[in-house]
């Protein structure tokens, strides 16, 4: 079953074609990695799917329903959540409060007198933080965290919305190399258990080949290749253009 379907998405900023005819079907339950050089339009794609940017042409369908034109807030209600390349946290709140606010957003925001940190939400926030191994910093203010912790908190907030589809923009950038694999393992376990479909932008090919079901290669606003990591990551053109490795076969092809 196709959960998300993009057809002919186009969006240019001035002369820069950030999306130049994107066609992509995301299958229900899969982990789809997006790779490609900086400026290829990966973030722009996520921005279009989450309602932050409106494509100049093309359509997006989610669960059979057209998405283009809906505000981010509406898309969250439909089950689409995202995390950010640069973490977007509520800086004056603690880590636990950041996550609890996401839970409240899902379950009942409009109560002026019941506390945000009421027991049920507090417990759920603690639970999510434990899954991300963030329990130790639950009471720290978000503006005191290091890059890796901010990144994880940012993702935890998206997960707390209990989405069906999550889009993560470079979830492991800023995370220390030594922790990368274990963090992604955790993340994948959490998302798989909840049956969440994931689209994530990733630069680490090791992470991609281990955890992605399919890989989409972005290049100048287009999808240059799409398929299982085993096939895509050995494609000489991809190796040369995206990863910057010259191979014998690559030379021959060029």
């Amino acid at each position: 079953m196709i959960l998300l379907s993009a057809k002919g998405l186009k969006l240019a900023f001035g002369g820069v074609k950030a999306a130049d005819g994107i066609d992509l079907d995301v299958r229900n339950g899969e982990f789809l990695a997006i790779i490609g050089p900086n400026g290829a339009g990966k973030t722009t794609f996520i921005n279009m799917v989450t309602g932050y940017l409106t494509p100049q042409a093309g359509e997006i369908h989610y669960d059979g329903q057209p998405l283009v034109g809906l505000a981010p807030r509406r898309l969250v209600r439909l089950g689409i959540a995202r995390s950010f390349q640069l973490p977007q946290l509520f800086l004056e709140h603690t880590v636990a409060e950041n996550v609890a606010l996401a839970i409240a957003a899902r379950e009942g925001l409009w109560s002026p007198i019941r506390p945000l940190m009421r027991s049920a939400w507090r417990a759920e926030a603690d639970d999510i933080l434990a899954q991300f191994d963030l329990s130790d910093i639950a009471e720290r203010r978000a503006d005191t965290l290091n890059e890796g912790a901010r990144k994880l908190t940012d993702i935890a907030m998206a997960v707390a919305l209990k989405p069906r589809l999550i889009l993560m923009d470079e979830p492991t950038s800023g995370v220390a190399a030594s922790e990368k694999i274990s963090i992604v393992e955790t993340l994948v376990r959490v998302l798989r258990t909840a049956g969440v479909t994931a689209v994530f932008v990733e630069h680490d090919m090791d992470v991609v080949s281990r955890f992605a079901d399919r890989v989409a290669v972005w290049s100048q606003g287009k999808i240059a290749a799409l398929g299982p990591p085993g096939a895509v990551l050995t494609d000489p053109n991809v190796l040369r253009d995206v990863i910057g490795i010259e191979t014998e076969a690559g030379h021959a092809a060029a």
Partner: protein
Amino acid sequence: MSRYADLVLTLLAAAFVLALSWAVPWLRFVMTIAIAKGLAVLGILLLLRAGQVSFGHALYLSLAAYVVAFMAARIPEVLLLLPLAAVVAASIGLLVGLFVSRYRAIFFGMLNLALSMVFYSMLDKFYEVTRGGDGIRVPVTSFAGVVLSPDQQSWALLILALVLAVGFGAFVRLYLLSPMGSALSALKTREARLEFMGIPARRILLSAYVLSAFMAGCGGALIALSTRHVTPALAYWTASGELVFIAILGGAGSVFGPFLGALAYELTRTYAAALVADAWQMILGTVLLVVILFAPGGLWGIGRALVVRGRQA
């Protein structure tokens, strides 16, 4: 601070206000006005949590005061006039809020200022209706159906002001800890993220705005009932500035701040005006400067720091 400590402090503060009003009768009026302004400042505090400063909240205070002045002849009962005036202020707050909640920072502040000045000039210019700068006298009103002596009435209004202060103080304290209050301060640091969590930022701000107009309305009604005379000066931009000044003086860190600030402000003004009439504005300016530079937590923050240091010593 714990709920218990807040409760004890509230009772002590109320007892202090009542004792002072009993010992120095003419301060009863000063303190009623101070608490009334404190209610409006509590609304300023809410908006400050969202990072927004309204330089026009005297609009709601004066609007409610004029509602009392206009309606007192027809409904000469405090316990009906006050809610009526507050509801009118909140309704106009909703209308204005739908518009101003689209704007942030300087635009938010200036739009509020502009709208309050429009109201001011209406009060000033439509002499037939509002009697312009002369203002309107508020006729005698009953309290809970009883016509009280002026002395009794001033006690009744002071106690009503205290009850409202405690009630709204407790409510705002809960509000700030609720998801709505939490989203309010989230709006200050990362408004865009709220939308990506399904939280309508504008409506969060609008809710706080309407609440702030409602509280300012209660304050304005109390002022009209206590002074028994309303003039356009209530709506003038300096009156709005005064509310922001009190918010900063008292400190935005706690619901006690606005009332502490308002009491300190009114008492200082009363005595300073008597002792050094010409220097009053200068004193104000200096105090504001000192608070901003050295005690951004305001009087409340200073008091807290002293208590904490006392405990450690």
